[in-house]
């Protein structure tokens, strides 16, 4: 594709580019620079970090691959896509780590530093040469380039300069103006509080790469974009959660570090004070949620951000928040489980824990944003729901949303989004602290400081006065009232939109971060004439209504999830099959034979995988 000899750049709708290097060589910074400029130009963008498992891995090792994938295109990009179109690898070993992950396909263009071909260490040279042969055999379109050599002309430490040189070279390749790159370089290094000297040096590097590209690249590409009508922000899901907390007027984030959730708190720790908030790093997850509950009880709805093992530890206190009807926002950035599992990898394995994981009947709201933009806005929703329904709200994101970056419309902030000031007006003496509305289960909430509102919150069974009460009828009633809140909220929800056609052969149901990939797969298949649609749930508890009716319009219903289910391969009867988590819930609620296609690759599901699943599902029927 890239060898057509033409001077006019070739127009393409989208491309997937990866930068991969030893950690410390700045492939990530380079990628972010490239992605920001794309986003700024109005392109659709989705980036995913490539993170090594160790903190300081050895150089030139598979385990040490650090980098970024950028998928960008003329239209909105909602997921990381399939195999890469172009990979820039600073050495052959880090490229292997991407090959191991299935990130390359036949024909992928591989830009690789040619410095290793002449390395003084024979074994390095040999490894490089062997790899080059192997790459050719695998059918990659390999382009050794003088990354190191060219960079060496401008700096002594090429490990610090290559990355920006490469960006300049790519700017030429993708026929992009250099000016926005120069702006972005200045911004990035300003943000890192580097001096003008550093910026100047990087500008030089950028221009050198660009010049080299213009001179040496036989083919040029172009992704046509229209300038975005509205201003946008680009960030990852964890940052979006953090910003969302601030926009929601939350003032207390009480957390304990855990991958892949912690960075959300880092962003908050850096910026929260500007909005008058603070991050409490507690001694453990139990204390973190207890602290958050204490603050919420005292009128400041707090957030606690964690991942699976932390959710496990918070189990008991979330139950208390349900019983005491304490507003509280809990963000679970899901990672691979069970147990310590795959700490940096994506999974959607905490759904059932969130919904059913608390001893006794503990109704609570469970939400799942499906985009980075929703990560932002759902924090506002979550706080409001928590306070309106006097309940904990669990927001399930995952490692894919957490570290993926995408642009979204600059939010139109509003004071209405902020939590109201703590109500300290005198309490109406006759109102009880749990004066449940029979229809909705909702009750007004006294906050310490309100004169006459004194009551004792307790996790014991209690009556409307919050007095300990063990009578049978009372217990039944109180449980009913807490459950009623879910019914009331559900009554205000709309059925999920169906993407594709309103009826057809197959409906894919998903939740959380898989939406982009699912919908892309659906669109691709529909373009082929396949009658597949999808519906995506944002509310898991209560669930959005109307599912039974929607399901009835399709020949087959199947969830697509990143969690475990017994496959069909082995001899397990349908009744005993251990199913994926959403499927369990949907089957029980609708009695429709909802099947599931679920996998635990520790990776986001690319559209091609889902396309495969759709084909399989439909061919089984045939």
């Amino acid at each position, binding site marked *: 594709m890239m060898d057509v000899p033409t001077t006019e750049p070739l127009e393409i709708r989208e491309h997937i580019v990866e930068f991969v290097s030893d950690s410390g060589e700045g492939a990530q910074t380079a990628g972010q620079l490239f992605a920001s400029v794309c986003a700024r130009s109005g392109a659709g963008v989705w980036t995913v970090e490539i993170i090594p498992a160790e903190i300081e891995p050895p150089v030139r090792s598979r385990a040490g691959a650090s980098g970024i994938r950028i998928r960008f295109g003329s239209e909105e990009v909602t997921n990381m896509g399939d195999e890469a179109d172009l990979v820039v690898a600073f050495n052959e070993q880090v490229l292997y780590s991407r090959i191991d992950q299935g990130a390359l396909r036949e024909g992928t263009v591989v830009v690789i530093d040619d410095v290793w071909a002449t390395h003084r260490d024979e074994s390095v040279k040999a490894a490089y040469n062997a790899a080059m042969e192997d790459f050719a055999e695998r059918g990659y379109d390999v382009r050794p380039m003088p990354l190191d050599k060219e960079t060496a002309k401008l700096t002594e430490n090429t490990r610090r300069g290559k990355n920006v040189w490469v960006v300049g070279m790519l700017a030429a390749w993708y026929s992009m103006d250099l000016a926005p790159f120069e702006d972005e370089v200045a911004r990035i290094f300003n943000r890192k509080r580097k001096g003008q000297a550093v910026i100047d040096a990087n500008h030089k590097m950028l221009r050198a790469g660009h010049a080299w590209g213009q001179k040496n690249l036989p083919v040029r590409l172009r992704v046509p974009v229209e300038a975005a009508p509205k201003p946008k922000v680009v960030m990852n899901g964890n940052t979006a959660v953090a910003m969302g907390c601030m926009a929601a007027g939350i*003032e207390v984030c009480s957390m304990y570090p855990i991958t892949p959730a912690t960075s959300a708190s880092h962003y908050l720790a850096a910026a929260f004070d500007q909005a008058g908030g603070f991050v409490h790093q507690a001694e453990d997850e139990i204390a973190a949620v207890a*602290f958050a509950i204490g603050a919420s009880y005292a009128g400041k709805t707090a957030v606690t951000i964690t991942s699976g093992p932390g959710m496990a530890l918070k189990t008991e206190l979330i139950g208390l928040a349900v019983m005491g009807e304490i507003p509280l926002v809990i963000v679970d950035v899901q990672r691979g489980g069970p147990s310590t599992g795959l700490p940096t990898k994506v999974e959607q394995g905490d759904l059932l824990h969130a919904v059913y994981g608390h001893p006794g009947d503990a109704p609570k709201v469970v939400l799942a944003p499906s985009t980075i933009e929703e990560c932002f806005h759902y924090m506002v929703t979550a706080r409001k729901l928590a306070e309106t329904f006097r309940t904990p709200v669990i927001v399930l994101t995952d490692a894919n949303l957490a570290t993926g970056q995408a642009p979204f419309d600059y939010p139109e902030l509003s004071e209405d989004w902020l939590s109201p000031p703590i109500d300290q007006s005198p309490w109406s003496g006759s109102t009880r602290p749990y004066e449940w509305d029979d229809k909705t289960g909702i009750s007004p909430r*006294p906050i310490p400081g309100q004169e006459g*509102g004194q009551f004792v919150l307790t996790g014991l069974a209690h009556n409307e006065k919050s007095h300990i009460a063990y009578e049978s009828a009372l217990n039944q009633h109180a449980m009913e009232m807490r459950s009623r809140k879910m019914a009331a909220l559900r009554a205000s929800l709309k059925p999920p939109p169906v993407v594709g056609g309103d009826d057809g052969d197959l409906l894919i149901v998903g939740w959380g971060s898989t939406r982009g990939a699912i919908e892309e797969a659906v669109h691709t298949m529909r373009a082929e004439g396949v009658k597949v649609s999808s519906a995506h749930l944002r509310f898991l508890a209560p669930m959005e209504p109307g599912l039974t009716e929607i399901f009835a319009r399709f020949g087959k219903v199947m969830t697509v999830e990143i969690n475990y289910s017994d496959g069909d391969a082995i001899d397990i009867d349908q009744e005993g099959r251990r199913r994926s988590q959403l499927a369990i819930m949907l089957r029980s609620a609708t009695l429709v034979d909802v099947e599931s296609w679920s996998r635990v690759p520790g990776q986001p599901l690319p559209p091609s995988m889902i396309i495969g699943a759709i084909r399989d599902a439909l061919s089984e029927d045939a």
Partner: protein
Amino acid sequence: MYGVKTDWFEPSPGCHYDLEDYESLEARWCPGCGDHAVLTAIQRICRDEQLPPHETVVVSGIGCSSRFPHYMKTYGFHGLHGRALPLAEGVRSRRPDLNIFVATGDGDCCSIGAGHWIHAIRYNMKMVVMLFDNNVYGLTKNQTSPTSSHGQRTNTHPRGAWLQPIDPIQTTLGITNASFVAQTIDWHPAHLTATLRAAHKHDGLSFVRILQRCPHYTDDIFDFARNDASKILLMTHPDGVEVPAAVAKGFPNATSHDPSNIDEARRLACGEDGLPIGLFYRNPDAQRYDLFSIEGLATPRAEKIAAVRRVLDGYRV
């Protein structure tokens, strides 16, 4: 005494709180349980200091002693077993206006809550922490607690507890940033009240271990000191817990102990000179985490929006 103790607090007219303004449901502890005495003492202190009931919060864990909030007509939070302290810290974090008392048991604080205990002492957020130490699990009916004495027979150690008890005072004194560490006894209302009052007035976390009788399960454990006051070592000092001279006379064994002296505090805590009561240690300069956590509390709403905008702008493309 109705509304007259106004030496440091000038009540607005018509705002006199009487004892009954702090009294709620009838306390359901066993007759003779030391918890009753502590309840009375706290209610008196609230009344004497004219703490508005609606600006007072009692937080507790789970246990007999943790039923405490139910018997106060203030706000209350009867939490989970072991979690009184982090719950109270959360309440404190953004509410410098509230008076916070924490009721916790020897199981609640020193066993399941031990990690939070260490860290609460370290955070030193203003609150009064009352450790009701009856050397046993009361509510769950007689199991060994970390302060049960060696050989004490309980339902989990019917042949006697195997280990030496831990000493909550000694442990607390080992934690950096401890700021007020005292011990008192439930059976001496004057000393109990004086200690808790000093705790309330301290600017930081006051840790008060109360030797608490549990006539139901550990009836005689404090008899040696109840029957013979000379077994008690009264620690007095102008900076410590002050008791009237008449009261002090009841303790033949007394010592002047400067609560800024931690080495001496640790030595006294060993108990070789008698069962010490009073203030072991006070450090008014210990850092208070609640002074950190309240930062920005008054940020105007418009400023919050502006801040979010500022931060978002950093991500604008």
